[in-house]
């Protein structure tokens, strides 16, 4: 009798706990996904009509005009082009540079290693702040050039440390045997180390790539030329303009069309999020390792 009652009590608690967690899970799911869904819906709706509100689940006046306007506007196209270019160039340079330096540092017997590591750790925790940094970029003539997107962030100290511990775990016998056969350091790196480093390289590529794709502040603070502005910066501009006017309803309508600056903005947002959704499955596969190495390891 006693036993039965206890079991019943447990199952009641179980039921309650399950109810709460599944309900909360559903709420979290909705709250996370719906904002993206909503932007997608609005991007397929006529802009002037959307500004009247009342659209929740489905476009009311379906149109592709927002996307047509986006892809016909040289401002947006140039922004998209610059963003693609900086992402590709920046990722290539960043991955190559970080990997090579990390590989060199992973040798415990490297002459001067202690000094090098000290320099890296100091750069991780200390910085001169934004104003001295800006003066430096100015002095190097990087301000207002495309290179300001790819050069200043080319060596990420955080991933450098991750790389040092990753390459350090590769057994030394592997490279020793190849060197015995007369292979140069670079050949060993290219033929032996790189092929077995896919997890690290993939993590690095994805994170650096997403970072470049999303970056807006270097475009905002270090670049003045209109043709060099990134997609993120252009979106920011639209929001800033709309923010000071009284709201979505007062968004300026484009001449002779049903789109508004805000409805084109939604198309731009979809274009900006789409690539991230595409690499998301790959990101997921690798980032758990990435974040674990970074945050829990000393």
């Amino acid at each position, binding site marked *: 009798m006693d036993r039965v009652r206890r079991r019943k009590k447990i199952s009641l608690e179980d039921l309650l706990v399950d109810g709460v967690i599944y309900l909360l899970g559903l709420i979290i799911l909705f709250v996370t996904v719906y904002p993206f869904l909503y932007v997608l819906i609005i991007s397929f709706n006529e802009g002037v009509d959307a500004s009247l509100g009342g659209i929740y689940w489905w476009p009311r006046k379906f149109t592709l005009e927002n996307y047509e306007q986006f892809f016909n506007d040289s401002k947006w196209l140039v922004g998209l082009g610059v963003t693609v270019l900086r992402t590709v160039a920046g990722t290539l340079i960043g991955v190559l540079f970080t990997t090579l*330096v990390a590989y060199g540092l992973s040798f415990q017997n490297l002459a001067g290693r202690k000094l090098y590591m000290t320099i890296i750790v100091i750069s991780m925790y200390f910085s001169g702040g934004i*104003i001295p940094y800006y003066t430096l970029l100015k002095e190097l003539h990087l301000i207002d050039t495309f290179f300001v997107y790819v050069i200043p962030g080319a060596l990420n100290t955080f991933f450098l440390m991750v790389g040092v511990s990753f390459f350090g775990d590769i057994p030394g016998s592997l490279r020793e045997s190849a060197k015995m056969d007369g292979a140069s350091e670079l050949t060993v790196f290219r033929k032996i180390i790189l092929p077995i480093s896919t997890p690290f390289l993939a993590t690095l590529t994805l994170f650096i790539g997403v970072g470049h794709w999303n970056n807006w502040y270097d475009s905002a603070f270090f670049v003045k030329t209109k043709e060099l502005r990134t997609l993120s910066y252009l*979106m920011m501009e639209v*929001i800033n303009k709309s923010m000071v006017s009284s709201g979505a309803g007062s968004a300026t309508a484009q001449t002779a069309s049903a789109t508004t600056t805000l409805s084109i903005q939604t198309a731009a947002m979809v274009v900006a999020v789409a690539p991230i959704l595409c690499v998301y499955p790959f990101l997921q596969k690798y980032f758990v390792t990435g974040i674990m190495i970074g945050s*829990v390891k000393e």
Partner: protein
Amino acid sequence: MKKRETWGKEFRKQLPLQIFVLSGIVYLLIFNFIPMFGIIMGFKDYDIVMGVEGIFTSEWVGLKYFREFVNDYNFANLVKNTVGISLLKLIFTFPIPIIFAVMLNEMKCLRFKKLVQTCSYLPHFISWVIISGISFQFLSSGGIINTLLMSLGLIGQPIGFLTDPDLYWGFAVLSDVWKEMGWWTIVFLAAIVGVSQDLYEAAQIDGAGRLQRIWHITLPCIKPTIVVVLILALGNLFGGGLSGSNFEQSYLMGNSMNKETSQIIQTYVFEVGLAQGRYAYATAVGLIQSAISLVLIFSSNFFSKKVSGMGLF
């Protein structure tokens, strides 16, 4: 002398590796160390027209700019916003991922768990620019939330979520929780998965219920992870805790109407430095914040070592 010889020999033997590493070190010296010397600008009567030499040749003014900042009419407000938003973020963005991780761990339907988790960390990869765009679509006076509330007759006037100074702090904390909750859950969930199943079975035999098991097994077992993440969050307290989002949020979501509560020291540095061109003053203000942050990193590390024997360095 002999030691130097062997060092040189070693160096030459490792020449290709040394070239890789040295290129990185030279890079760091240029992009990280040179700006550190720029800090002296904050103590000098520096003007941008003087160029880089001016940093060294201009006149020393001591703490003039520091005093000017402390006496600025904005000072109290800036400090209040910086500290207030940071503390609120710590209080909310730190425990929520732990609760969420425990919750996910209790879900028995694995497909649902995976679905919720996968979706929850998507916002981490989306830039604050897009988040501010989404916020505008939802929270502006013509946005979906205001129109919905008005059509239901719950409010007569649209609520200025993005413009009302009283609402900015809440908005900052909520949007940060929304964006980063799932991401930090990964760390805690990984720790929970590492907890031995035997402990749970033993507790179950002893008659411990679900909540008791969570309280007496799960949470104590992931305490080391909680402590490490807490140090990380405390070290970057004024940057915005775990996600370091204070600057981006304040810069993107702050506007002339909510400036009173949205402007923080970092955005102030930008305004006076890059927009108004007062480099020396802005450097001094930035330096105050960096100094406080460094003290925070070292002291949180120190206390954590004392209390739990764990630290970052």
